[in-house]
């Protein structure tokens, strides 16, 4: 399956995940489930993901069908420049966005779907020159290890989430974010030296 345009599928999957996150968030917030504030977060994250993923990217070859009304969003998305163009950044962004929603039952499906979309974007962002069969397996293993470490970090944060005040979550979330950037940017040509 050489030249499948995985990014196209990642885009559809991320858009669907955004919608699922919004739905789950609305259910949790409206029903005032326990820890419903994760539901509120999920709505915001879902809207953000939908807006980011709505403009369909141009295909490498062949014609691309634009989604209805996407030109309004494209100008906004383009403002962020390389941050949104780069699939690697999108992969990490989606993974990070999906983690908090995983703590609430109503949004767990959204987390799983968004994590899969993130995985597909990660697959796309591995440069083709390095995408030989063996190197791909190695890259996948490394990515898997990084994801596992990040999940462990997220679990660590989760244990702290039973604190009474939301504001106490902030330092641990920042720590998780820094870990994520450090883990996923090591070895990337644009990575800062950490």
């Amino acid at each position, binding site marked *: 399956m050489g030249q499948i345009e*995985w990014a196209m599928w990642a885009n559809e999957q991320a858009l669907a995940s955004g919608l699922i996150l919004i*739905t789950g968030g609305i*259910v949790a917030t409206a029903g005032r489930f326990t*820890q419903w504030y994760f539901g509120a977060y999920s709505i915001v994250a879902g809207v953000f993901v939908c807006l980011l993923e709505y403009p369909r990217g141009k295909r490498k070859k*062949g014609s691309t069908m634009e989604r209805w009304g996407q030109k309004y969003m494209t100008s906004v998305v383009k403002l962020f420049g390389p941050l949104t163009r780069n699939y690697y950044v999108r992969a990490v962004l989606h993974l990070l966005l999906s983690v908090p929603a995983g703590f609430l*039952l109503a949004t767990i499906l959204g987390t799983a779907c968004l994590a899969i979309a993130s995985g597909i974007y990660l697959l796309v962002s591995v440069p083709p020159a390095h995408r030989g069969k063996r190197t791909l397996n190695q890259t996948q293993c490394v990515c898997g290890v990084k994801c596992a470490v990040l999940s462990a970090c997220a679990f660590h944060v989760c244990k702290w989430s039973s604190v009474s005040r939301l504001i106490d979550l902030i330092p641990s979330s920042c720590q998780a974010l820094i870990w994520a950037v450090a883990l996923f940017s090591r070895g990337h040509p644009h990575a800062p030296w950490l």
Partner: protein
Amino acid sequence: MMGCWVLNEGLSIILVLSWLGVNLYLFIDTFYWYEEEESFHYTRVILGSTLAWARASALCLNFNCMLILIPISRNLISFIRGTSICCRGPWRRQLDKNLKFHKLVAYGIAVNATIHVVAHFFNLERYRWSQSKEAQGLLAALSKLGNTPNESYLNPIRTFPMNTTTELLRTIAGITGLVISLALVLIMTSSTEFIRQASYELFWCTHHVFIVFFLSLAIHGMGRIVRGQTQDSLSLHNITFCRDRYAEWQTVAQCPVPQFSGKEPSAWKWILGPVVLYACERIIRFWRFQQEVVITKVVSHPSGVLELHMKKRGFKMAPGQYILVQCSAISSLEWHPFTLTSAPQEDFFSVHIRAAGDWTAALLEAFGAEGQALQEPWRLPRLAVDGPFGAALTDVFHYPVSVCIAAGIGVTPFAALLKSIWYKCSEAQTPLKLSKVYFYWICRDARAFEWFADLLLSLETRMSEQGKTHFLSYHIFLTGWDENQAVHIALHWDENTDVITGLKQKTFYGRPNWNNEFKQIAYSHPSSSIGVFFCGPKALSRTLQKMCRLYSSADPRGVHFYYNKESF
């Protein structure tokens, strides 16, 4: 006008409304049953009406999951199409819409799944809350049931958990539910029209996640967490009297402790039949894969089209049918559809393959179409063929007049048809019901003509030999042309044969004016049924459907256009 539209589209609409009606009936009936059924009275005390929402949508899901495999059982559809006892005319046309029905049922599954999942989120939250210290009265009493040895529990959550997610992941229903939902989302996101056209392989491979879907669905209810009061307990325990006396259940003889049991899983009963049917389809495909396919001729056309002539024991086809082709050297899991371009009267069957993606490009390369040296026959890769599967064009011979319209590569099914028409004309014994064929070919690129032009040329000569020049009337429209070509064409306009195709009938430039064409056909055949067959893009399909409706007369004895569209 309205009457003709109703006739043409009526049966499809009736079938869709029936499907919707059955869904609504099942939903509403189950909803009211769970809302009013005595044995679920105590369950409703904890859950409220979300129990009924969850169960009603579950039944609709069972129904739709049963239906979804049937439209893609291609051998079954071909078999039904072949039995012409009851399947004439409008019913046959419905069989062509099997993929549309498959998509419709898929949307039904998505909607019901959403309702089911949301309702169960509420259920789980309510079960959890009723185990908390704040729960009082009947709610608390019901949740405590099952703590002592003689009691059966009602609330599947036994202790007050920190988090409902962990509770979900402890139950079979929870885990399988998550897996099913994930499988459904993956299938749906990879099946959008854009992905299907951009990468058929991705769509094909991801769709096989349905195996995980059906397996998980079969075991989804095994945990039996939907609990209702047993019949024995109901006969001993009068709900209306006892429900307010929950404090006395242990002590008062009239109100023994209610006993509960889980509802047994029923999804497997619904899906067993279709799953077995589809498994048979796959077994047939595997058996056909084992059969030998001999490649007798390989022709590489300059326009990047590969023509393969093949032979297989016991292979019988009709014009317009298609086959699924697999090449183990390229990919052992992928089967790609191609329309047959040979006539049934020939002793071989052929397909024309154009490089449109990874798999087809690899196939062209393997068969030496990329301009390399001649391939030896033993070096050619082994192919497997499944089919043939039926499609609309087998109906062409049932109308006295047929109009065939092809856009671009959509001409391939008509290649088989025109050859078949010629063979049938040559057999003077059986007179054909079909007396006139109009053929329209709309093409962007003149180069793509050349393999089909040969066919038309030979048909033209043979028809004139038989004295049947007026049987086939064809019109070719070239929609993409540049100035050089225009000048060349203008210079040779007066010659007998067309400068692009070499045919006697001239090529037209630009798009056809369908109003004029249909008007002329309707005028020439005032009281006939005319079958319109189309293969090509959707936009043109909509235009042609509109034309068929517009030019069909309101008088039942007048001219009627019946529209058929080819689709994979």
